[in-house]
């Protein structure tokens, strides 16, 4: 089932009076339940595409149909209300609120959508437990936990409202290998449970978790690879992805 569909999607930035076209007439479909990975060289338009799809930024022209709702013409506040219900975000820098505990960070997103506090709190506890965070850590501030724990917390925040899509922007970029692997395991697990994920990355290990890899260059999707569902230790799948990326000139 199509979750997101774009038509003639364009995005241009004005850089010191010079217009730079970042996305060029993109026609794209994202299916529900997919773990879609967007790859490409720096400046290719990966993040711009992801934030346009998530309603974090507005396209210059073209349409974005998100679960049957056209979001390209929405105002900033309409987009905010749309995001809170339909999108979860995982950022490279985590962007947890430093002045709140981990639990409150999760609830600050959850209570924005639902007034049923007990249900939200219960879900937050379940999610935090499921990503390996103990009750002691829930009440710590983001500066008091490790980067990996912080990223897993931000994944929980992204999931709390059962969004249609979790958007992840370089989710392992600021983490060491072990912590990055743990974060990816969480994302893979939720995807296996049916959660749609769209992830922008430079990291091959992260890309390997997706079942569909899009390669973007100069604002155009150059190609895509349907690598199938992630299975730990599947070397053929890994080789297929490597071959695709090599073909794309990565």
């Amino acid at each position, binding site marked *: 089932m199509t979750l997101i569909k774009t038509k003639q999607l364009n995005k241009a930035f004005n850089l010191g009076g010079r217009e730079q076209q970042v996305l060029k007439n993109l026609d794209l479909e994202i299916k529900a339940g997919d773990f879609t990975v967007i790859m490409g060289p720096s400046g290719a338009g990966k993040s711009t595409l992801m*934030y346009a799809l998530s309603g*974090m930024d507005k396209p210059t022209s073209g349409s974005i149909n998100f679960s049957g709702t056209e979001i390209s013409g929405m105002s900033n506040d309409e987009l905010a209300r749309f995001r809170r219900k339909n999108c979860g*975000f995982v950022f490279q820098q985590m962007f947890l*609120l430093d*002045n709140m505990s981990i*639990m409150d960070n999760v609830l*600050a997103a959850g*209570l924005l959508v639902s007034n049923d506090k007990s249900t939200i709190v219960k879900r937050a506890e379940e999610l935090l437990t499921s990503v390996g965070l103990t009750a002691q850590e829930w009440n710590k501030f983001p500066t008091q936990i490790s980067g990996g724990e912080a990223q897993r917390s931000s994944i929980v925040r992204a999931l709390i409202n059962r969004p249609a899509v979790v958007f992840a*922007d370089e989710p392992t970029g600021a983490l060491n290998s072990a912590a990055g692997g743990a974060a990816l395991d969480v994302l893979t697990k939720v995807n296996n449970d049916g959660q749609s994920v769209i992830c922008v990355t430079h990291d091959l290990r992260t890309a390997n978790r997706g079942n569909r890899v899009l390669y973007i260059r100069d604002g155009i999707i150059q190609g895509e690879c349907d690598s199938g569902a992630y299975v730990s230790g599947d070397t053929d799948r890994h080789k297929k992805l490597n071959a695709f990326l090599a073909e794309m000139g990565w």
Partner: protein
Amino acid sequence: MRRILLLAGANIRRAKLQMGILAILFLIAAMLMNVGFALLFNFGNYFDEMAEDLNTSDALIVISQNLWSEESEAYLRSQVTEYEKHSVVLLMGEIPWGDNIVNQAFMFSDVAEVRNFSQWKLVGDYEPLSANGVYIPFGMNIHGHELGNDFTIATDQGDFTFVIDGHTESILSDGVNTFANLFVPTTQFQMLYDQFSNYRAYLFFANGVANVSGLLFELDVIAGSVASGLSPDLVMAGITLESISMFRTMMANMTAMIMVLFTLIIALVSLFVVRFRIKNSLEEDIGRIGSLKAIGYESKQVIRSVILQYGVVIFIASVLAIVPTIFILPAIGNVLASQSGIFWQPGITPEFYALTTVILVLIVWLGTKISARGIKKITPVAALRGESIANQKTKRNRILLSKTKLPLIPALAGKSVFQGFRQSLMMFFIMLAVSLTGMISLVIFYNATIDLSAFELIPGNERANSAIALRPEVDHRALQAEVIALPDVRDAQFHDFMFTIANEEFVSISVMDDFDRRVTRNIHRGSFPRTAYEVAISGIGANLFGTEIGDVIYIGTTEAPFTVSGIFSGMAEVAMLTAEGALRANPDFTQNVLFIYLYRGTDAAIFTENLGIQFAAESFMVINGDAEFEEGAGIFASILSMVGIVILIIAICVIMLILYLVIGATIIRRHRELGIQKAIGYTTGELMRQISMAFSLPVVLGTVSGVVLGIFFAGDLLNVAMRPMGVLAANLLVNNVWLLAAGGILVVLAIGLSLLVTWRIRKISAYKLVTE
């Protein structure tokens, strides 16, 4: 140095709006300081210098020639080190005074007569004295007696009209709480001197007078104790330079004290704000500071650039404040002139401007020093990572979202309050201090403009609607009965003053038949005197004699003992005696002035005019008490209402500026946090509510505390301020409704402004944050 200058310049350019607001705040503070300093130091000095320039004597003594003798002169000579004697003509009369008519004692002098002591000078524009011209005191200029106007004095001897050819300034005889000395041409003076031979008097300017009251008392004894303060043919009066100086500079000093106190509050608030602003800007710029340190800038260079950045802005604000100061001071001088009688034009006072600038720059220096301590400790790498320069204390997670009953946005606002607790506390105290100041100024304004009933009681003078001064030969009791029988009269009783000795001090004593019928109920403790053996004393009297209720003091030539029955509040008299008591103290005491109390709604002006006609033969003067009182209170009221309203307006402006500055800075500082919230779906409106609620709590609490303190303590604070003047209980009216309404307006304005300022949150972009 060039690097530091460049850094400071770049910082100013980057935060133009914030620096502009800070500059306005400091411009107001500098202006208030300039005005306060000028009033406090320059006005008093100006008065003293003028007194010295005019070679003003220690005291002025005016004695009717009818009461003068060789013996009097010999006694006077023995009591002073030097004196100068002039002949004058005394006339009591009425003149227009703005919209009112007032009684005034006039003293005509020959313009050609040379004075060595207590000289006078012409101020402002003037003409050579014409044949019918007169030079009048400058204070009258403000009340409609301008150059070229006719000047008509209505006396019981008829009306006298002159043309005003100029205005004079003198210290002891300019009509402010003393005689008004009018200068006429020699021929005119001679004519008056011949025409009013009974009203001739000697004017003495004397130096080295130990006690004027005592001197007058002895002179009165020599004259046979017949002097009357109100009969122009039996005048024996005196005043000292010290008391005139105190009276004429009192309002200016009070205004200056209020201004300086308010300025100190503003300065303190500014210190808070500067510290907050600097701390915030350092937090915002921590990355840049890291870059600078990384490329070799020393911490002290960075700190100096911050001091320079703020120092330059505050210096410019202080310099710009000179312009409004130059315009405002003459206007204040004009308002004060009605009470001071001084043509005070301070002009440019660089010493005060410099003092103000130094104080404000020191505040900035101090604020920067306190705020920038962390810069020295932070390493370039840590700064580049964006670590805070503030000490990282373990925070407590207040208002748990999982537990709180509050809705989400108020709960997040509450978290912000606790997380920025010091800032919230700062806002609370700023709002408390400024709103309390506003409440005090509102109380002053209310009492000086809306309801003057408490204000009128402050001097402690008895207020009658009308009064009649009787000739000595008249049967006083019969006339009193006749006046009481008049249809409009509610009551009438004698009220006189007696100058005599009490516990070896020369004092002024108020004498009435029955103090319980007195309208001005200014007894503070105990009771008014009820018997011939009781005396009530003022707060000043209690200090003077070292006595309390129940103690005995000895009064008059007979040194009769009196028991203190009560302590009263007031600025004029030292003691109160019943008429019977006064006779015990001085068997020669006579009652002369009948105070008349009219039924409500009776026109005192018409009544007094008719009274004068009906009892022309029995009296030498009638007084419209209502008009006199309004005129007297009016001067104080107009000055204090102006001070009150100006401070109130400034308080509101300061609150608005501070809120703008602090909330604006907070939004800048928290743009990351707000950006994250926007990214996860918070709307601009929700964030605006969150921020404004977080500010509303300390703002509302501070304002409410200021209002509550105002309601309960504004009166007490003003009482304390007035105590040195002898006012034991000013009992100023504190209109709770007004204060609550003003507090409500402040809160609404503050919340409205915080919403307005938080509107800039809409510009914060979640996308920019995540892609930076």
